């Protein structure tokens, strides 16, 4: 019995939790307890999976006893289990945060009781997408998480959320249709949708067909991952959702797209046929995204643009298709999931404390709540890539890999990456200067709440709105937990980078993946262009 036999539980446990919380819809306390307990259990299981494949090894499990390539397989390797652990840790923190918010505001009979089941379904979809070794099952995973995200995006059904939700749903459905068309064409061309089997059979197709299928998959995943020029839907739709929902979307959903792109590039279409266009897309994503961020005055929108921008770094590492580049990209994905989510959670706290998320109105928060300042400052500097932090380490790895490749395009990416990093620093420093450092009376549209004397600085009650705790302990605690996790990524960067580089080497080699799914006798085709050797 191999360790991967327990992998389906990573999907089943959240779905079970969703069913239970749906039954408990009228008992909000039980609902919270069940969802937090099951998600913690899932996280523990995934930590165990990661620990068992930490030093290498790829395991596959056949669902329902159907043999590959006919049945569905779930594959546990270093990359997928690392993604599982990081995503579950982040979703657990966000769940605690949302629970704290719910308890603080008293939503006993608000429609948000649907939040817990939907949220757990979302987690199940994300886990399924990370584990899937079958292209159609990957599509199903995407659809599970997307359908859950539609509901979360339009939670409460207010005007702005419905408006943003419509754009989001239509764009997501179109990308899913593109993905499905790509699957149909791949099945038509090869007669299989098992990814390990495809890795062998796609190599036998002629170059034109291969490029067409490759481009179709990349466009479908590019929309989900918000790669420029397919990224315009994201800053439009994310900021209107409730703070915890935006946080988990920003952390996880685009990264699932990036994960799918990594699998496409390394497993299905190895070699460097489309690396040059990918590099150009990465450069444009970084630069255009961050220029958009500089124009924003709303922190949530600003962060959405930095999210788009930093997807560019991951595509950069992927497009290098070297062990160093891909390893740095793997590390960067783990770093960015944590940091971007914690920044959105802090923004939710800023909105509660300061009454707004616009830097035109916010002021003097550093004096009102130094803890909030710390919670914002650490991930913000981390995002910008200031030396001791993980953002710096990830970017450094990418730059080194880029210089190692040494082509003009790679140098352009290194320069673009540095510029983006500096502009990110400028964007978050603007937020810091305005929201935290300036005096309330200096604000352009000063907020009467902020100008008023704080009765109780840390957990003071908002003027005029009695019984609303501004900074509930659960919300601050879960945010702090995520910030600490982000710092831990820095402290344990050595072993993590080793893991990332090892997983990159395994992914570029492909042998372990194919043989674990199809059995040890499967012959792994030679790479036409030897992209892994660089």
């Amino acid at each position, binding site marked *: 019995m191999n360790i991967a036999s327990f992998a389906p539980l990573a999907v089943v446990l959240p779905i079970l939790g969703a069913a239970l919380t749906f039954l408990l819809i009228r008992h909000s306390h039980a609902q919270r307890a069940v969802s937090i307990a099951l998600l913690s259990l899932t996280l523990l299981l995934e930590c165990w999976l990661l620990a068992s494949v930490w030093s290498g090894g790829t395991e596959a499990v056949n669902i329902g006893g159907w043999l590959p390539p006919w049945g569905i397989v779930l594959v546990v390797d270093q990359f997928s289990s690392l993604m599982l652990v990081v995503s579950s840790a982040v979703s657990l923190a966000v769940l605690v945060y949302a629970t704290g918010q719910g308890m603080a505001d008293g939503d006993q009979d608000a429609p948000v009781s649907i939040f817990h089941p939907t949220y757990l379904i979302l987690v199940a979809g994300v886990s399924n997408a990370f584990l899937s070794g079958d292209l159609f099952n990957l599509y199903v995973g995407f659809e599970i998480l997307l359908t859950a995200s539609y509901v979360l995006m339009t939670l409460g059904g207010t005007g702005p959320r419905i*408006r*943003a939700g419509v754009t989001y749903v239509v764009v997501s459905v179109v990308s899913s249709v593109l993905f499905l068309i790509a699957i149909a064409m791949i099945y038509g061309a090869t007669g299989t949708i098992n990814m390990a089997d495809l890795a062998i059979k796609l190599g036998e197709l002629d170059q034109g067909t291969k490029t067409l299928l490759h481009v179709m998959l990349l466009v479908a995943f590019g929309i989900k991952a918000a790669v420029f020029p397919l990224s315009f839907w994201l800053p439009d739709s994310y900021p209107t959702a409730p703070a915890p929902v935006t946080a988990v979307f920003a952390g996880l959903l685009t990264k699932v797209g990036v994960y799918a792109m990594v699998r496409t590039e390394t497993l299905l279409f190895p070699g460097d046929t489309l690396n040059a266009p990918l590099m150009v897309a990465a450069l444009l994503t970084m630069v255009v995204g961050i220029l958009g961020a500089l124009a924003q005055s709303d922190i949530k929108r600003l962060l959405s643009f930095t999210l788009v921008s930093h997807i560019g770094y991951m595509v950069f590492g992927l497009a290098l298709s070297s062990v160093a580049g891909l390893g740095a990209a793997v590390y960067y994905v783990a770093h960015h999931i944590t940091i971007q989510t914690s920044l959105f959670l802090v923004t939710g706290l800023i909105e509660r404390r300061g009454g707004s998320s616009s830097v035109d109105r916010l002021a003097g928060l550093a004096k009102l709540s130094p803890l909030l300042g710390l919670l914002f400052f650490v991930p913000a500097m981390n995002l910008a890539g200031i030396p001791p932090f993980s953002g710096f380490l990830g970017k450094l790895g990418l730059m080194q890999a880029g210089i190692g490749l040494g082509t003009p395009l790679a140098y352009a990416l290194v320069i673009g990456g540095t510029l983006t990093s500096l502009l990110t620093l400028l964007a978050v420093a603007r937020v810091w200067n305005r929201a935290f450092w300036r005096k309330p009376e200096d604000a352009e549209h000063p907020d009467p709440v902020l100008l008023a004397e704080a009765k109780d600085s840390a957990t003071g009650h908002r003027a005029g709105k009695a019984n609303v705790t501004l900074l509930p302990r659960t919300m601050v605690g879960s945010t702090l937990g995520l910030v600490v996790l982000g710092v831990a990524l820095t402290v344990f960067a050595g072993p993590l980078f080793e893991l990332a580089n090892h997983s990159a080497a395994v992914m570029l080699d492909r042998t372990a993946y194919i043989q674990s799914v199809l059995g040890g006798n499967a012959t792994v085709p030679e790479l036409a262009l030897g992209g892994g050797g660089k």
Partner: protein
Amino acid sequence: MSVNLTLLTVMGALYACGIYLILERSLTRVLLGLMLLANATNLLILATGGYAGLAPFFSKDTDPRAYNDPLPQALILTSIVISFAVTAFMLGIIYRTWVLARQDEIQDDVEDRRVAETPSFDAEDDAVIPAETSEFPLTMLGSDGAGVTDSSDTDLADSDSAATDSAATVKAGGKTILAEDAALEEKPGSANVHPGPEGGVK
């Protein structure tokens, strides 16, 4: 592998109509477009199964080439279920839009419009910093003689103005101004600006 031409034609027509409809601004039409796209894709998946044949898992003796490929049909079933869920959700959203706004149109992002109309000049970031930002007035510099230099010592290239030749000057805010003027500036109600030959402050 042979393909049914009718299916292909219908599929093409569905894609064309679907793409046309999702480019509309009316939500109901967008929904219809998405449904057409999903159904066209289902036909595409069906076409990948090859020409119609015997029912799958018919008998062990049947020639494998006579079977219909069952896998695409399983995929279609899944995809139908998914598009059903999405359609139901979209209908809910469209109804909600109608309840809220009494219109069936995609609306612009207000914040996006606002940001687009924001001038590139930012009062806080881009304003010219005034020459005098100190909270301590210039008289404090001039009164005890510190910071006051005689212009004959400094190599000021002000050959155009003869008035500054014999006067003491003070360096303030990156400019050099007359000590008298600096002192005058601090007196309440004084006319602290002498129009110079070019209209500026001497």
